């Protein structure tokens, strides 16, 4: 089994360029139901490690420190806030093909009018143990 992170940000996508706070009530509800159902499906398949949404960009902070003096903490709003991470799923699956399949499912989450959002899902393998014959 291999672990993958499936990451998504706030970027506008082919199927939707409107933030969720602007959607119709029914569209919000079906989107949430879709995400819940996907997590339930992954859990039932024994493939889900963790799925979390992150608090909004309004609460994001960037921290840098040169090792002396005081750390620099930058508050939002950030001009590039669309690039910030919105949420992630960590999955533990048989193959990369399966990770891609799940990412595809997530990308087709319904948006306004039930149209798939087509949000890009970043698929990143989590580093693991060395192979035994190394």
């Amino acid at each position, binding site marked *: 089994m291999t672990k993958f992170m499936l990451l998504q940000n706030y970027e506008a996508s082919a199927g939707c360029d*409107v933030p*969720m*706070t*602007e*959607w*119709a*009530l029914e569209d*919000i*509800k079906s989107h*949430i*139901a879709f995400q*819940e159902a996907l*997590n339930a499906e992954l859990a039932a398949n024994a493939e889900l490690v963790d799925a979390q*949404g992150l*608090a*909004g960009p*309004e*609460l994001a902070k960037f921290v840098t420190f040169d090792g002396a003096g005081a750390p620099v903490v930058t508050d939002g709003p950030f001009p590039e806030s669309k690039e910030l991470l919105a949420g992630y799923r960590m999955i533990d699956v048989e193959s990369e093909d399966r990770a891609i399949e799940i990412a595809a499912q997530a990308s087709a989450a319904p948006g306004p009018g039930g149209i798939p959002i087509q949000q890009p899902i970043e698929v990143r393998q989590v580093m693991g143990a060395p192979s035994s014959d190394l």
Partner: protein
Amino acid sequence: MTTGAGTEDLLRDLAPQVLGVVIRRFGDFDSAEDAVQEALLAAAVHWPAEGIPANPRGWLIQAAVRRMTDQLRSERARRRREDAAAMAEPPPADVTGRDDTLILLFMCCHPALTPASAIALTLRAVGGLTTAEIANAFLVPESTMAQRISRAKQRIKASGVPFLMPAGTEWAQRLRSVMHVLYLIFNEGYASSIGADLHRTELSSEAIRLARMLRGALPDDGEVAGLLALMLLTDARRPARTGPGGELIPLAEQDRTLWNRALIAEGMTLVTEALANGVVGEYQVQALIAAAHDGAESVEDTDWPQILALYGLLERMTGNPMVALNRAIAAAMAHGPAAGLKLLEPLDGPLAGHYRLDAVRAHLFEIAGDPQAAVTHYRAAAARTTSTPERRYLTTQAARLRAGTAEPGADG
């Protein structure tokens, strides 16, 4: 009949009593706590299969003492061998289990500990939960929780606190810490008892059980009764707090027939009796507010002027701006939204950027018939909350209101 749940309840009740005895005999809280934890784990394995022993408390004490002795023996192995007879020594004469529970609670909620450490240690040493169960409840790896507990014990050791009841003014301060820790455990479970986090509700049940234990040790303390009443009166509403899809349902929209009447009755009796005994504290006032909600058939039927007065009292007692926020809601319900909105104004400073201020303002603007302002504040609140069910609730509130107004869909 021996059931798994029966064994578990018995073990958790006995845990602090057994630990008290072992500490008294060996004087080392840290190792005694480890030994009792191992004895509890052993009992959880053996009892369901072999039946509960005739003297479960004695069994646990003996098992823990044997582990302590084994440990001491291996430490002293080079110097001398312990006599096996020492291990078979009968448990010491009964000391008051009540006092031990209280001393243990005081110890685990020592002010030298952070709230997170105090919570973890209390759940393990007094609650008899395993490290794995506590880790699961707080959604962290078991090794992280084990380390948190181990460091907490080191801190207690370093602070040199004796296994004795604290004296004088310290006693009252420590009792306040204990009540605060139990309240935090309850809230941790209650606030997250939504949708997928259902297993965390065990924390609320455990906090109630510990509060009952505390009340058993201090039956005449009004604030202890108030704390237990507050937990019961709040927990009674849990079944109505979540919808079929795991969504958050606010108090005003809850199906009150789902509320647990037995818990409400018990909580109301407790807080009424406590009030008759004199000094009124924060937990009693909060319990009275919860009782005012629980006793009402509907939002309209609620005695809002009474709740307003109680929040006024609580605000004077605590100076907490979050209490002031709740007072503003009560004022709006008692005297109209304008009165509530006015009370929110001075909170812009102390609660700047807090999503709850926006959420309340949105709600009051909605009642006041200003959906545009309500949408703006619901959105601001949704952007700043750190809870998924709350974000969903606030986002859908904004969408629902927007559907009823002429506001264009996408205005950024």
